[in-house]
């Protein structure tokens, strides 16, 4: 983004087509926060690229950032698609939108391997514990014992997407709740500044199939049980930093790869998001106690990303000229001489 000509954007520059999701669907509020985050960061929309799998969640990239390229791929297999595309022009910011079925059921393998590769992109899971688009079957994040119409009771323990990301050595892991738009937005901003995989598991209620009282992915449950680790604010590199605004000791700062700052304002206890160990533990506690712990769970800003390992030129690969791609005839003569 460094080379952007500073343009003044209006919010409309970041909008998408009208949503065809259900009214009240958590996914819609996440889309709004993506729009706001990009707008507030002043990202050039053409510098973003969107990816998704299949599902209600995966439909949503159509509903934000119409001026960004996108690929609505296959169910569970957005990660590989995104990885390949992002090599074409590594200056682009990738945003992947997935569902819990898309990521944790069919997509488990690709998700885990994308994370393990530390592919630089934002990976948002719009997690509702259910398959929305196919009308309400259990996803792999549905809690044990959940009852759904036509499906009976779910016999399995849920997949914890944040824990999965941590164990796969993700370098940025957060959890949030669609009912907490401010936190969602700040997390997305931070994620967009992260040079590596940034996984955000957002509990995003499905009002049509899994919003019943007591369901772990319902609005009510989230409202009752959300326990933010901190109040998070994102400060882009160009802004003047005024940490003095905060009371001494009341905040923790994380400096991102691009110089921006993530400010975590302490709530009850001080939480250190650079300790994977603590992150795993806080998640285990959340599981045991039925809390929805939200916030930036873990961050490791200075690990080389997958792309960093490839020694690529600044010029995007997809703008290379034929003479950069085809060796000269002389080289082929050498090759022929080698073949014996």
């Amino acid at each position, binding site marked *: 983004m460094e080379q952007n000509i500073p343009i003044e954007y209006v919010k409309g520059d970041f909008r998408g087509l009208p949503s065809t999701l259900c009214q009240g669907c958590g996914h819609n509020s996440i889309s709004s926060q993506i729009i706001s985050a990009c707008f507030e960061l002043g990202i050039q929309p053409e510098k973003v690229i969107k990816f998704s799998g299949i599902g209600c969640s995966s439909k949503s990239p159509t509903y934000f950032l119409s001026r960004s*390229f996108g690929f609505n791929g296959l169910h569970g*297999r957005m990660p590989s698609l995104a990885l*390949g595309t992002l090599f074409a022009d590594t200056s682009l910011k990738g945003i992947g939108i997935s569902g819990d079925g898309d990521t944790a059921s069919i997509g488990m393998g690709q998700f885990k391997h994308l994370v393990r590769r530390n592919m630089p992109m934002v990976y948002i899971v719009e997690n509702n514990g259910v398959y929305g688009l196919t009308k309400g079957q259990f996803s792999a994040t549905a809690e044990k014992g959940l009852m759904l119409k036509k499906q009976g009771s779910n016999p399995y323990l849920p997949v914890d997407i944040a824990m999965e990301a941590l164990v796969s050595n993700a370098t940025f892991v957060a959890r949030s709740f669609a009912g907490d738009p401010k936190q969602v937005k700040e997390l997305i901003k931070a994620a967009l500044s992260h040079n590596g995989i940034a996984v955000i598991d957002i509990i995003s209620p499905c009002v049509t199939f899994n919003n019943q009282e007591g369901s772990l992915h319902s609005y009510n449950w989230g409202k009752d049980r959300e326990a933010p680790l901190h109040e998070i604010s994102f400060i882009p590199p160009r802004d003047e930093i005024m940490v003095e605004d905060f009371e001494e000791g009341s905040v923790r700062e994380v400096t991102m790869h691009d110089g921006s700052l993530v400010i975590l304002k302490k709530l009850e206890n001080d939480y250190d998001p650079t300790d994977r160990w603590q992150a795993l533990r806080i998640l285990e506690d959340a599981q045991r106690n039925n809390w929805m712990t939200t916030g930036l769970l873990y961050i490791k800003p200075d690990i080389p990303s997958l792309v960093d390992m490839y020694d690529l030129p600044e010029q995007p690969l997809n703008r290379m000229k034929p003479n950069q791609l085809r060796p000269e005839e002389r080289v082929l003569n050498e090759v022929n001489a080698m073949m014996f």
Partner: protein
Amino acid sequence: MSSTQKEAGKDIVNDFCITFATVNGSGSQTANITILRALFKMGIPISGKNKFPSNIQGLPTWYSIRVSKDGYLGRLEEDDILICMNPASFEKDLAFINPGGVLFYPDDFKHPINRDDIITYPMPVKALAKEADVSPALRDYIANMVYVGMLAKMLGIDMTAILEALDFQFKGKQKAIDSNYIVAKSAYEWAAANLEKKDRYVVKRMKPLDGYIMTDGNTAGALGSIFGGVQFVAWYPITPASTLPEALIEYLPQFRKDPETGKNTYAVVQAEDELASIGMVIGAGFGGLRAMTATSGPGLSLMTEYAGLAYYAEVPSVIWDVQRVGPSTGLPTRTAQSDMMMAYTLGHGDTQHILLIPGSVTECFEFGWKSFDLAERLQTLVFVMTDLDFGMNQWMTKNFEYPDQPLDRGKILWEADLERLDGVWGRYVDVDGDAIPYRTLPGNLDPRSAYMARGTGHDNHAQYSEDPEVWEANMDRLIRKYNIARSLVPGPIIEQEGSVKWALITYGSSDPAVQEARAKLKADGKKFNYLRLRAVPFCDDVKNFIASHDTVYVVENNRDGQMNQILQMAYPQFAGKLVSIAHNDGLPLSAKWIMRTIMAQEAK
């Protein structure tokens, strides 16, 4: 003709098959290829085929070198000379020696030799290997050089050619060259001193094979891709495809640094499986990179869904299918041409893909670069259909030729183009009437450039649509595009004998055997016209060729006659004259089997 030469008493010069029966993991490959190279260096046409088990160490393995002054490179069914180093397979192997053939074997073998119609040469392998001044760990390894020396002596292979071959093999590392050569040389001398030549097989220098090189199809494919400007490779290991990406990993850093910055102009990613490798490749293709993968049947099966997406969303990429024997895991180290139908229709719903089918190793190189031009021109997948026989065996083949056309990146609109068009464009609009739309690439900064690619129904502007007419119109355009491809893909190679009413069609690695069968049938007075397919879909030349014959034999290495089926579907009006000549037992077809089967058909 070889048959005339095999008359009693006369020498059989440069026309026979040598097979080495060894144990895999025992390092015999070096010895075998040394002989192959030495013969090639002497100007004698050769091909080398490895018949190896699907394990790593300890099981029987066979390497056959065909020596053919006439340049026939197909498989022979029997051996003329057997070097048997493996007691486990000894008995069975013996049966494959032609009468009058030769057996070399270590003199400590205890097995009875139940043939009196062959010539036998025992070899003091242990003794000679022990003499060699190498560490005991290497001793077994270079014991194989004993048979190299013995064979050189008994057949008349130049020891200078052996030395050249070793020099190449060990990349000039003198110590390795020496320790191997010394063993070969002492075996040579032992043979000279102790053995009397009783067999009739000899090699004689021919004029140098200028314009030919020796390599395998996977290396050729990798190099061709590099000269085609490949930028992104995602792969997952699988026999017999792995050596293609591995050759890319070897050669890309040598040939594809950006001249200005010295940075890489490519990326190779080993994926977690083929579901992912194809996804990555299609992502990269969408992003505007020349992207490819290489796999074999099981991997191709896993690529089915993404292949359908690429077809419908019109994403260019190249997939090499180095075919092996299926169904299922099948025989992973044996060859077949049995994914043809599958690749042609890969994906659910109505799909049709473009297949390029190299018929020689040098064509593997050629289609390596051409496949990208076609994929980007047509905005679709291109499958390069090769197989284990081409991919992993050593072939003499024509020099690689530098591409005679500049890179064709197809219809891409960058910022300046959109400016010129006033931003008026649509991803799937058929502007030029050739059914091929224009595309923009991510990173294009024009606010009008972006679109959302998708595998769901979409209109001309890539917007989601369930409209029946929109769906059907788009699908029909894809057929028109496929028809346009007919004139862009490599046409068939046709050889006519004049107004003959019988013809042969084949493709890929079955070509050498068919060529040989055809020549021999002709010598027996039965002439066949000939067509070698190089691509699906077919152009009118194929149709006209079939139309102008009464009976057309379609020869291929699979059970179901898959290309025959594809031809039947393409030309139902001629389906009745197509006769399938197909079988697969994991080995390349032999001219002998082809002749036998065609004659049986003719007799019907």
